[in-house]
């Protein structure tokens, strides 16, 4: 993937396995969001392929990929601001074929899962950023994705909420979902991820378990700047 002469992503190879949370970290501008866009079909790669369950979806549009089980959230919020919180989730559920009372019950369940059930009837565009991100997560889950890509879901959350989110992600993986997590909150990443990929200037510079990545000198040089953990922002 390149923009003009700049290679935004260069020979990046990343596997997201079911049943675990895979982390993707890297400094700002490393290409994390671009990679998300390539995987979900919002941007076309110059070469390379995207496979879901071994099926090549490189030439499919975002909508087709969504139907094949790819779900995502956005770093810049993409909620339906003029709808209520519950309606946001209903749009996704109803698109999946649920109707009436069943849809509403399923919607409330999803909101409860991310801790938004008490805001169900609030208009979505007055939600604070953190809660809006959780709403995006609930809405993405409503499509029952097999792979879910989360772009900084914890930004805007406090410590307790962030810990709850971490537990939710582990639960989702436990249910057989493949979770790809882009996150700046290192505590969260180190706690929930089974494997972590580190991206810098469009290249994967390190892959491994949290402990390995944490001590990898290349990662420390490129990203952590010597400090072992800590929120980067």
């Amino acid at each position: 993937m390149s923009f003009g002469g700049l290679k935004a992503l260069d020979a990046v190879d990343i596997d997201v396995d079911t049943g675990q949370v895979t982390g993707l970290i890297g400094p700002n501008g490393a290409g994390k969001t671009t990679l998300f866009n390539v995987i979900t079909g919002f941007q076309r790669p110059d070469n390379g392929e995207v496979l879901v369950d071994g099926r090549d979806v490189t030439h499919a549009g975002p909508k087709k990929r969504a139907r094949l089980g790819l779900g995502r959230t956005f770093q810049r919020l993409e909620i339906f601001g003029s709808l209520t919180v519950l309606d946001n989730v209903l749009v996704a559920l109803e698109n999946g074929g649920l109707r009436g009372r069943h849809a509403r019950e399923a919607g409330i369940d999803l909101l409860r899962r991310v801790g938004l059930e008490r805001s169900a009837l609030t208009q979505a565009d007055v939600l604070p950023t953190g809660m809006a991100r959780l709403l995006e997560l609930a809405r993405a889950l409503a499509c029952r994705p097999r792979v879910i890509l989360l772009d900084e879901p914890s930004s805007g959350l406090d410590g307790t909420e962030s810990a709850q989110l971490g537990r939710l992600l582990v639960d989702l993986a436990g249910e057989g979902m493949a979770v790809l997590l882009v996150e700046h909150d290192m505590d969260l990443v180190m706690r929930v991820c089974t494997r972590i990929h580190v991206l810098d200037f469009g290249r994967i510079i390190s892959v491994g378990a949290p402990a390995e990545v944490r001590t990898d000198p290349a990662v420390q040089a490129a990203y952590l700047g010597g400090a072992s953990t800590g929120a980067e922002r």
Partner: protein
Amino acid sequence: MSQFLALTVAGIATYGCVYALTAMGLVVTYTTSGIFNFAQGAIGMIGAFLYWELSQVHGWPSWAAFTVVVLFVMPLLGAGLERILLRRLEHAGLEAQLTVTIALLLLGIAVATAIWNPSTARTVPPFFAGHQVSIGGVVLTWHQLIIVGASAAAAVVLRLFFYRTRPGIATRAVVDDRELTALTGAAPARYAELGWAMGCSLSAVAGILIASQINLDINNLTLLVVNGYAAAMVGRLRSLPLTFVGAIVLGLLQSYGVGYLPISVLWSDLEQVIPMLFLLVVILVLPQSRASLARRVRVRAPRVVGRRESLVRGTAFIGIAVVLAFTLNAASFSYANRGIALAIIMLSLTLLTGYGGQVSLCQLSFAGLGAFAMSKVGGTGGSLLGILAAVGLSAAVGAVVALPALRLRGLYLALATLAFAQGMDAAFFNNIDVFGVSLSLSVARPHLPLVSVTSDRRYFAFLCIVFTAIAIGLLALRRSRFGRRMLAITDSPSACLTLGVDMTRSKLAIFTLSAAIAGLGGALYGGAQSAVSPNDFPFILSLTLLLLAVAWGIRTTTGMLVGGVVFSLGSLLDAHLTHPRDAFALLVGVAAIGVSQNPEGPFGGRTVMRMWRDRAGRAGSPPSTSAEVPPGERLTSAAG
């Protein structure tokens, strides 16, 4: 061969180069301010009239009048407009941006009509009248040479400005990313002001130069320069060289078309139809810019009225309407009935633009089709088949217009619908095969099975009931599954893609249903005045409707009622006020410009009724807090 040469010369020197001037002005304003100036033609028209006033009435030498208008008055006007009105709109929604420049267009026409009586014939002599040169057997007047020279000079100067000077380069940076350029210390606003000054000046040059080739007529001049839109689209509103080429090609097409094509009934007004076809083709054929993650604005949606509340309110309104039907004096019904019928047509805008987020400038064309179908099928008895035909015909045409337009977004969709509306004006409404030699069709009021609604009073009550039924229906639709999806698509197309939502089908359905409502409204509008003529559906009136709708809250059904009533009061005002001419248009223009002070409409997207209730309820409760998101994050949404 000599005819071919003559047509070529006319195509380039008379039309092409004038279009080039105005189109380049359009590109300059758009690139510097990000706002598409619908009023470009009206500004050129004002420039031409000012020139006429100075040179013909006050006897100034033509060079002095030209200099004063082009180099002083118009740049000041442009800079002033930018500074006072448009700067606030940088982050406003597309409807608000369109509304303000459309209001400027209408205001320009209204001001000119008030100052210069349209029934007086005026001519502007060409520069160096009588002088001409012959090149290879083709005669060129000095005036034509000046047109070619002026456009070439403007092209060269602009090119040098944008590529060789510091402000020019900064301006191009502003186009690519305003916020980023602002971070480097440049001042985008200053360049926008400069851009508007240049744009207005160029359009005045175009207006003055073309004025001597055609009559100095307010509408003609305004619309002629509208053709510059088409050329500017060839350059995607960005590229000056492509814009120039587009203008020349359009000028030639028009010239050859008029010269060679047989005068057929359908295309009786080729001169008008060709630019519109050209614009449609250009918009549809040129690749769309990456659209899935575009700049987008969220505006607070008004609260959705519940089922019970909308029924109660609807019943109350019908009650009031029935009382009014018995008490209003007989003379007021001709205004009141038209107003309510227009309110029904405007409901189509609530659906399409208010809920669906698509801006259409051709709703009145659908209304006209509805009236046409009612007249032809409904006959003198007003058979209900006519109503069915009206709904069916406008829905069908709406679907056909929507199909190619679905891939268009925002401004491009608005321009495509404008092209369609103007094409309909020229090819359909002003066609004697459609409206007869008298250009008038009688339209009967519908004949209902149980109760007659043909008297003025009963028709008024009937219209109010139809309005209420459609409004309640729209609100129910808004609360339904379809409504949720519709708003989701408007709020975030990207998110809809990731949820696998089929947007094409929903958009097509919205556009078709909206056209059907407009068609029904048109049939009833025809019944209200028992005959329709082409003058009832000029595309300019579609613009007025949009302005009224936005001003009174395009996302509310009550807003449309207020808009319709205001419209009928306006016609009443015009009927009783001889000075200034077209007072209502002046008022609408001024009111819509008020939108620029508050892009959600003067009432913040709320209706008068709701304002009043809010005020009553505000005593105890604090105002609701807005989201805790920094403004920049909410306003833009671009790919990372």
